[in-house]
């Protein structure tokens, strides 16, 4: 029953101890995690946005510069001049100085015929009438193509400008090195896993990015990203291979290409992950700490509860013992009174018999003299036994506190040696060492000297009996100890190294008529009388004992000197 109660208390306390601190702790961590991760995410996104938009401008600038390079040539030079291979070569060399990205340079007439070419391929004379780029440039005047294979069957893209000179149109076209261009695009790369590339309007790669994407292949992500309208759009998307990326996309203004930056989400938010790890670590360590603290505290609290329960039980048992003793006292007092009356009659009868018997002349009785002496012996014995009964009833009545104490201040420093002297002879005869240990020059108590003497003598005699039982007439040791204990209480103890008290006997030790001595040797009233006396004097009596080791009987008395406790000896007045 009790065990179950403790278990449920333990569970309740433990759960409260864990939940109460853990809840706010967890909420704090979660709120912190939310705001921290949001701000980190925003930070990472805005950083990538800024980089993409800056870089988009750089690429735009590059394309615009290359266009204006060609514009400058076409405006400053006539078709006739450029048709000269030497002149074209000189112009191309100047162009190469402007930007190393130029691979070749070619001149076309209005019909698409390649009039002159400066570059690594042999393209002169080929007609580009049907080529997309040629049709576009003829229509728009300036054109930047997507990456295509063309006649040379190598991925490249071209920038072409058209000029109308004295009624006839001609076209100047330059090819851009895709590798150099890719490098330019890639220079924006963020982190180890970041990819940067250009996509055309159909979603095909226009640059390579560290081999992560293939030139002119369709982006596996599907079609091109929606038009960003000049700004930067960021989003998180999982590609078909199952990897999640943070994308930042911006549209170029010089060409309908999109600059795409994609960053592995784990890398993009790596600092966030580190923070998350730390938060998890904190949560685990904090949680463990809370649990450990709760365990410790629960154990402590439960220990205290159990201790208090034990104390309560002990107190309850003492209370039960006290009330049982009080009941026994009342009962035996009534019994003693009832026995006293017949005893009184017996005593009177005996007295009368004695008187009558004394009056009878013994000389010439018709009985042998041994019978007469037998009768006399019987009479004496009767007298003796009636007196013994009287002593028992008197003892009971004392136990039942029916004699009123007359308390006064006694100095134990004088009192104890006096009482000790009374038993000194007996101790000496039986080889018992009798010691005393009194602390302080004076130890005043408020008590009835006669009753206190009775109690102390009783305890000393009991102690000596106990040592005799264990040691015989050698090795017994009895010590009287006295000292002030706490707030106005003086404790007097009698310690012996005697036989001790068994656990069973401890419960009955103060009960009247309980004795371990042989029949006729002890009435079993000594300790119960002492107990009654102590109660009557406003004191207390207790003991501790181990069977086979020894016992200590202590009495606690109100200190004297100043004012005694108010209820120690109430005056009987009506």
């Amino acid at each position: 029953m009790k065990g179950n109660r403790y278990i449920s208390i333990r569970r309740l306390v433990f759960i409260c101890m864990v939940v109460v601190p853990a809840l706010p702790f967890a909420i704090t961590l979660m709120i912190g995690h939310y705001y921290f991760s949001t701000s980190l995410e925003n930070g990472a996104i805005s950083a990538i946005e800024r980089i993409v938009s800056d870089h988009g401008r750089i690429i735009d600038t590059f394309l615009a510069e290359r266009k204006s390079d060609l514009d400058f040539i076409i405006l400053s030079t006539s078709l006739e001049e450029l048709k000269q291979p030497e002149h074209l070569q000189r112009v191309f060399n100047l162009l190469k100085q402007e930007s190393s990205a130029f691979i070749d340079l070619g001149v076309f007439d209005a019909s698409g015929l390649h009039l002159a070419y400066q570059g690594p391929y042999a393209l002169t004379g080929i007609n580009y009438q049907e080529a997309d780029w040629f049709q576009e440039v003829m229509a728009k005047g300036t054109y930047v193509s997507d990456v295509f294979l063309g006649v040379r069957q190598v991925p490249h893209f071209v920038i072409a400008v058209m000029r109308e000179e004295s009624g006839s149109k001609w076209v100047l076209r330059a090819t851009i090195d895709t590798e150099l261009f890719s490098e330019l695009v890639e220079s924006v790369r963020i982190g180890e896993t970041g990819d940067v590339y250009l996509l055309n309007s159909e979603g095909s790669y226009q640059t390579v990015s560290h081999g992560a994407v293939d030139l002119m292949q369709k982006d596996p992500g599907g079609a091109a990203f929606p038009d960003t309208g000049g700004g930067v759009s960021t989003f998180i998307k999982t590609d078909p291979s199952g990897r999640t990326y943070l994308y930042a996309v911006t549209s170029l203004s010089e060409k309908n290409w999109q600059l795409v930056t994609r960053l592995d989400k784990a890398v993009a938010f790596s600092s966030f992950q580190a923070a998350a790890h730390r938060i998890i670590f904190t949560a685990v360590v904090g949680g463990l700490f809370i649990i450990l603290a709760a365990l410790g505290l629960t154990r402590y609290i439960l220990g205290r509860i159990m201790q208090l329960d034990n104390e309560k039980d002990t107190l309850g048992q003492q209370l039960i013992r006290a009330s049982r003793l009080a009941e026994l006292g009342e009962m035996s007092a009534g019994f003693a009174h009832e026995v006293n009356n017949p005893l009184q009659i017996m005593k009177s009868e005996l007295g009368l018999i004695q008187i009558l018997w004394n009056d009878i002349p013994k000389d010439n009785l018709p009985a042998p003299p041994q019978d007469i002496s037998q009768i006399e012996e019987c009479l004496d014995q009767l007298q003796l036994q009636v007196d013994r009964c009287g002593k028992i009833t008197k003892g009971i009545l004392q136990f039942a506190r029916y004699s009123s104490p007359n308390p006064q201040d006694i100095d134990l420093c004088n009192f104890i040696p006096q009482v000790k002297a009374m038993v000194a002879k007996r101790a000496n005869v039986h080889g018992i060492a009798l010691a005393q240990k009194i602390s302080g020059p004076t130890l005043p108590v408020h008590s009835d000297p006669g009753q206190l003497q009775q109690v102390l003598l009783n305890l000393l005699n009991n102690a000596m009996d106990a040592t005799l039982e264990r040691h015989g007439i050698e090795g017994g040791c009895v010590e009287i100890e006295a000292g002030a204990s706490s707030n106005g209480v003086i404790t007097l103890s009698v310690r012996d190294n005697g036989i001790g008290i068994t656990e069973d006997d401890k419960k009955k030790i103060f009960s009247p008529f309980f004795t371990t001595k042989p029949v006729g040797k002890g009435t079993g009233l000594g300790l119960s009388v002492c107990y009654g006396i102590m109660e009557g004097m406003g004191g207390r009596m207790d003991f501790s004992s181990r069977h086979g080791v020894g016992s200590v009987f202590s009495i606690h008395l109100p200190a004297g000197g100043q004012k005694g406790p108010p209820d120690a000896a109430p005056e009987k007045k009506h």
Partner: protein
Amino acid sequence: MSNIQMLIVDDEERFLLTTQKILSRKGFDVMIAHSGQGAIDMLKENAVQVVVLDVKMPGMDGLATLREIKRLYPFMEVIMLTGHATVPSAVEGMQSGASDYLMKPIDMDLLVEKVEEAVARRRAAEKKSIWPQPD
């Protein structure tokens, strides 16, 4: 000098008879009463010097009887006999004018001694009071 007249009051018949016999043999004039009321009646009819009074009796108890006796005969010597719980009442009795008390079971010799002491006291008191008191 005439015998001492004494009255023993107790509810135990046999105690009264035996004690009467013993004390008579010791030279007392012993009267007996079984109750407080009986004792008062007896005192009205007989001259008595000492009363031995049990505290615990049915009807009018020892203390009430004592007060009544003391009211009627202020010089009466009263010795209380007590059982057990009556020690405090014996003390109260002493305060109400009893001259002594004995704890049961009593010794006859001790009773005789106490009665003689009481008589001596009474005689001394009477001697003193006769002279200063004209009435």
